[in-house]
């Protein structure tokens, strides 16, 4: 049996788990092709016009899988911890797909609400396995392997690598250190984000993303706002940014976002205001399906140059 996994949205945060789990259950896992012009076009065609690019992309990736697999895995992410939920578009994802894509009849919709932790995660895995006619022991085994593989993935990040982009552990002595914050499905999809991270690394920067900051560090800033954000990924982004600003671990922060992103209009503005207050250089780069290379390149280069000059100046002052 073949199971299709769309390479979009939550995929980038959890793919080692998802892929390993299904493989260990004995299924053939087919991941949709890396994002390409065709996939974007397919998505744009079917998704509602004012949806953000990541959601359109999800549509495109699902279409990329249609006709070549038995099931298409579509998660409905509700909660993975007790403090926050996900962007409404994650919550309504399967519903949107069902209405927007014609002849889509093999969705394996999985509702993920595991606020209480591991136990719930396992029983969820078990129920998915049962749906696919697999027994308890197979499920248990697959679950354990999947968890291991996700943990390894997370650890790689903490060591300074960016596995989804094929970037190995980065050199610590780089000239500038940059915090690059944004949702995993933008940061780690080099096609939509025009390889922002790759570009920065090639410019000689050491890039730190939210996934590279330990959860315990981020937690410290949970109470920073009078009210917590409602969305898991946004919390991670914002706390990482607070952490950067507080500890001055990086020379500047770049926020990678999607045009028209609902949660980000809040997240971005809060960061911008904080950064101004704390005197940390801050740049926002927004993407949609039409964003061109040149504009982004010039802005990134200008930003990095500015940071370099700033450093020199600071060194003189000291």
């Amino acid at each position, binding site marked *: 049996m073949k199971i299709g996994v769309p390479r979009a949205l939550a995929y980038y945060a959890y793919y080692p788990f998802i892929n390993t789990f299904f493989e260990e259950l004995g299924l053939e896992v087919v991941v949709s092709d890396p994002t390409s012009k065709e996939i974007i076009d397919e998505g744009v065609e079917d998704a509602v016009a004012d949806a953000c690019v990541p959601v359109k992309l999800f549509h495109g990736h699902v279409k990329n899988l249609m006709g070549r697999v038995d099931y298409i895995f579509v998660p409905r992410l509700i909660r993975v911890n007790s403090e926050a939920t996900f962007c*409404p578009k994650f919550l309504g994802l399967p519903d949107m797909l069902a209405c927007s894509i014609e002849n889509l009849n093999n969705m394996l919709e999985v509702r993920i609400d595991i606020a209480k932790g591991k136990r719930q995660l396992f029983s969820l895995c078990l129920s998915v396995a049962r749906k696919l006619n697999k027994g308890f022991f197979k499920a248990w085994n697959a679950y354990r392997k999947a968890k291991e593989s996700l943990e390894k993935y997370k650890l790689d990040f903490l060591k300074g690598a960016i596995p989804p982009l094929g970037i190995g552990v980065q050199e610590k002595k780089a000239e500038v250190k940059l915090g690059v914050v944004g949702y995993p499905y933008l940061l780690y999809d080099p096609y939509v984000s025009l390889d922002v991270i790759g570009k920065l690394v090639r410019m000689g920067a050491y890039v730190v993303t939210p996934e590279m900051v330990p959860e315990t560090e981020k937690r410290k800033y949970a109470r920073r706002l*009078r009210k917590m954000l409602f969305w898991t990924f946004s919390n991670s982004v914002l706390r990482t940014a607070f952490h950067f600003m507080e500890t001055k671990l990086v020379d500047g922060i770049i926020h990678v976002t999607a045009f028209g992103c*609902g949660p980000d209009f809040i997240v971005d503005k809060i960061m911008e205001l904080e950064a101004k207050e704390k005197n940390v250089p801050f740049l926002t780069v927004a993407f949609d399906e039409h964003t061109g290379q040149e504009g982004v390149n010039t802005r990134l280069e200008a930003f990095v140059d500015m940071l370099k000059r700033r450093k020199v100046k600071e060194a003189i002052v000291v």
Partner: protein
Amino acid sequence: MRKVSFPYVGNATITFKKLMNAFGNEVVLPRRPTEETLSLGTKYSPEFACLPFKIVLGTYIEALEAGADTLVSTGGVGPCRAGLYTTLHEKILKSLGYEFEMITLEPPGRHLKELIASIKKLVNKRLSFADYYRIIRFAWKELQLLDKAEKLSHKIRPLEVKKGETTKTYRKCAELIAQARDYKDLLEIEREIELLYERIEKKDYDPLKIGIVGEIYVVIEPAANLEIEEMLGDLGVYAERSMFLASYTFYNAVMDLLRMPGERDVKKLASPYFKEMCGGHGRESVGNAILFAKRGFDGVIQLSPFTCIPEIVAKSILPKVCAKYDIGFLSVTLDEQTGKEGLRTRIEAFVDLLAAKRKHKEANKKGDVVYGALFGN
């Protein structure tokens, strides 16, 4: 004395003013949002903020300029981002150099303590229990009356013989309500409102019916939706909206307190298509559209602020649902660039389409009869 101001919420603004006065505060009355308000709000809002966010920010700035030192934000407006909404409004305004205190009225269910603390800050006068009872009963009745006057105006406008009469009557009703001082006044005014509307000369025909669904702020605030209901009424269409302020306030506060996932019907209807509650009013939009279809309406208009997430989800579901229930569908996205003329053209086209559809249906029905007569036994 505190100088309190708050977002403009249609005619209910008057009710809030009286409420705040009764609690011993001075009130800086928020202005009805104008183009200026919106451009002020847009100037200081992030580009992708939704329309309600921008309008409310603009209103706050105007109020602060007029001397307010306390802003009360109603957690009820724009629930999907409400809490954060206020946080960001506050941050932006402070960064502009305004000094004030922001008081948020959170829904009572999860934040009862905070709500009480907030209310305490707003009560600056010694009040007995009887006073509270009197004040709240009055405010509640007033909200109900405002909704009633508005509902009647929507019903009667498409039938009016003399154009503009309903609008005039409605303004008069709002004025009467604004002048009410106690509960007894309101009871009298209620009767008067009914009379006033009765007196309007009406045509006798069955107008096209359109249901309005969408995000609450743009649905209930005419200044935000370019007075779409009046526009429809002038075209001879009966427009009914899915949400009203009084029912919303009540519903939200009480249901929240009892932790009841309310509006059962609407949610149940929507659930085959919209399986998850996802904040805002996306799910209600779908459920209400079905409800309108079942009641024999001709069409549904969805009002959604640009970048409003729940409504985008709803928008991808609504066309299919409306097609299934055979009811016309039009989605209107509102942002600071939406112009009244453009909207009117789209609405006119939509109304023409619905009229043609209805004719077609009626003809078909007749056709059936003829067919039966010819070939039946």
